[in-house]
């Protein structure tokens, strides 16, 4: 019993550090990818090809002065970034990286992730309100509306996957997927995959749905008043959220840890490649697309994505009842 | 339409209002009285043969004591469909420094007139929102007048004193300046005493 608990704690520590390292280098990856898309080099100064840049950035952010607005609501202001990061990190617990390798392989893994991503929205909303600044407040309001709307679309988009796999457990979904005719659900669930990709961008507040921050209108939106360490927590939360969303996409639609052939000693490689492909997709979209307007985002969510996802659910139901059975 | 014909037409419509007209470098300038300037502008704007629909520029000129009437408000008008321009120069005396606003004809005259009011001190009657535009609300004097010194006024602008007071107040957040600011001073500064500077 005690040894089990200790082992779990060790596992948590290992996964946490690996994820944090990935987050650090996800920022590096982003700057390099976007840099090369924009005919420039990205970070080049710190270390060879700027490889130490994320570490330098981290040190800078964590040792910067923690500015606290005088009129802010203190407890909420402190709690908001922590809620953001905790919600994102907790989701990691249920993600199976390869067969049998998840901190906690619970039966309602997908629902748990949805629950946690809805909690992440709280961090943004409360940060916007607690800063007691108008830009932050507008950002927080936008965030609350956007997160509610897109959570529905995202939840519905993976209902099709749940129906095909017949389970909410993420490992089971991967296993069921591997036995399906195409090997991945992205092909039969193409509608659901599309809705998921769009909702994934919106849930993590990335361009073209970065309304809550939206630097050209609202300066930095909900995190306008945050600096240093607390800003870094938001930043980490956003990137961990990206990794979580990419992992969910990988598990639900791209076949998780399975690949065309087995890689000995390093089974996580397929999972990582797929996750990094989805993260690259985030960056690619960011470098290409302009930003939506707030009302257009809501229209897209409610009038396009939710009906599409509902249609996908109905279609999957019909197929499952009459065709695949 | 020839420029002189326009002047002729204007003279017929407003006898006694036109004082002088000067053609210089191919441009026609008409010096007029200010009293019926709005009607004159409306005439130029609406007449189908003139159609001055574009107000290119509106500004004030301070002639100091060189002329009998100190100020002039200059309207540079242009007709986009007919491609001719004319300049109206309305004389505004110093002791009654006001003229009718032409914002009802050209919405864009709004900011031109605000600028002229701000820098030259000419009041436009009937302007919807005549405030200072380039200078702060609390500025004293009108800098483009000839009697305004180039290097600026002797007296410091009151807003600058306020800024200095704020800077003093924020000094307590300075790394080295924490000890220099007492609570009593702080409360005075917070109460918004403009111009309060710690000696």
């Amino acid at each position, binding site marked *: 019993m005690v040894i089990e608990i200790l082992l779990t704690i060790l596992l948590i520590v290992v996964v946490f550090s690996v994820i944090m390292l990935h987050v650090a280098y996800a920022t590096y990856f982003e700057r390099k990818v976007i840099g090369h898309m924009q005919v420039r080099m990205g970070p080049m100064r710190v270390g060879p090809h700027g490889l130490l840049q994320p570490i330098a950035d981290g040190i800078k952010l964590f040792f910067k002065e923690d500015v606290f607005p005088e009129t802010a*609501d203190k407890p909420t202001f402190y709690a908001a970034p922590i809620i953001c990061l905790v919600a994102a990190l907790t989701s990691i617990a249920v993600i199976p990286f390869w067969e049998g390798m998840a901190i906690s392989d619970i*039966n*309602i893994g997908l*629902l748990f992730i949805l629950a946690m991503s809805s909690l992440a929205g709280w961090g943004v909303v409360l940060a916007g309100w607690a800063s007691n600044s108008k830009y932050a407040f507008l950002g927080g309001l936008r965030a609350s509306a956007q997160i509610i709307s897109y959570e529905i679309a995202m939840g519905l988009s993976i209902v099709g996957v749940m129906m095909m796999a017949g389970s909410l457990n993420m490992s089971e979904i991967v296993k069921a997927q591997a036995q399906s005719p195409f090997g991945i659900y992205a092909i039969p669930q193409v509608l659901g995959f599309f809705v998921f990709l769009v909702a994934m961008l919106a849930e993590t507040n990335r361009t073209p749905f970065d309304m809550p921050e939206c630097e050209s209108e609202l300066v930095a939106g909900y995190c306008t008043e945050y600096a240093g360490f607390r800003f870094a927590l938001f930043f980490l939360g956003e990137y961990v959220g990206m990794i979580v969303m990419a992992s969910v996409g990988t598990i639900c639609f791209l076949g998780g840890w399975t690949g065309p052939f087995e890689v000995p000693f390093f089974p996580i490689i397929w999972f990582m490649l797929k996750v990094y492909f989805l993260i690259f997709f985030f960056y690619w979209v960011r470098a290409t697309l302009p930003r939506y307007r707030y009302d257009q985002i809501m229209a897209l969510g409610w009038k396009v994505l939710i009906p599409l996802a509902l249609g996908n659910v109905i279609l999957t139901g019909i197929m499952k009842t009459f065709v695949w059975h | 339409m020839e420029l002189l014909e326009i002047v002729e037409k204007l003279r017929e419509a407003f006898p006694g209002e036109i004082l002088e007209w000067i053609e210089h470098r191919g441009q026609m300038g008409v010096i007029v009285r200010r009293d019926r300037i709005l009607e004159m502008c409306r005439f130029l704007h609406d007449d189908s043969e003139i159609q001055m629909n574009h107000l290119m520029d509106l500004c004030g000129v301070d002639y100091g004591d060189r002329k009998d009437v100190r100020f002039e408000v200059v309207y540079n008008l242009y007709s986009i469909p007919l491609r001719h321009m004319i300049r109206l120069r309305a004389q505004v005396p110093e002791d009654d420094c006001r003229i009718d606003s032409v914002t009802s004809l050209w919405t864009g005259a709004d900011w031109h007139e605000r600028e002229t009011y701000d820098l030259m001190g000419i009041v436009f009657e009937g302007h919807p929102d005549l405030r200072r535009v380039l200078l702060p609300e609390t500025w004293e004097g009108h800098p483009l007048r000839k009697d305004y010194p180039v290097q600026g006024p002797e007296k410091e602008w009151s807003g600058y004193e306020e800024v200095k007071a704020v800077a003093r107040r924020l000094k307590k957040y300075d790394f080295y300046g924490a000890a220099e600011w007492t609570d009593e001073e702080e409360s005075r500064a917070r109460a918004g005493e403009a111009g309060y500077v710690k000696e």
Partner: protein
Amino acid sequence: MLTLPQFFFIYFALAIIFLAGMAVNVRNPVHSVLLVLAMFFHMAGVYLMLNAEFLAAVQVIVYAGAVLVLYLFVVFLVNIKEEIRLKRFIGSYTTGRVITIGMLATLLAAAWSFKLGPAGTWSIEAVREITHTRALGIEMFSHYMLPFEIAGVILLVAVVGGMALAKKDRNRATTTEERRALMRGEELGE
């Protein structure tokens, strides 16, 4: 000596009572909503202890993720600058106290009369075996199909009705021209 489940149950129960009390008592409405959020999480914990993990997740997704955010939205939008002081319905404290105590007594009496009913189909072991989500699904979509659908339709009616009530001219104005017309005080044509 308490067992671990007992300890957790007592913790959750006390925390729920405490947080609910605090939520009513704090002055700042946003803090109040935050406390309710924490309370919902503790309730989800109670569900988890009952092996109802599906309900726990839904509790967080629906109540914490959607309903409470809407509450928060309303709290943000309604500008509560000063405490709203209501006039009391009844002038005397005594009458109020008597009524309150009466209500409490009724509640206690009702609670006292609870008895354990006969065991149903779903014993703890049965639920463990086929997982809670599946058990819930089977129950809901076989025995209680009709009530479930009726409840769904009622909710749909409520949503549509809410939209019909809330939809005013302002929400119809999607273009600049329409918004400008509204600002001038004109009515929008169909």
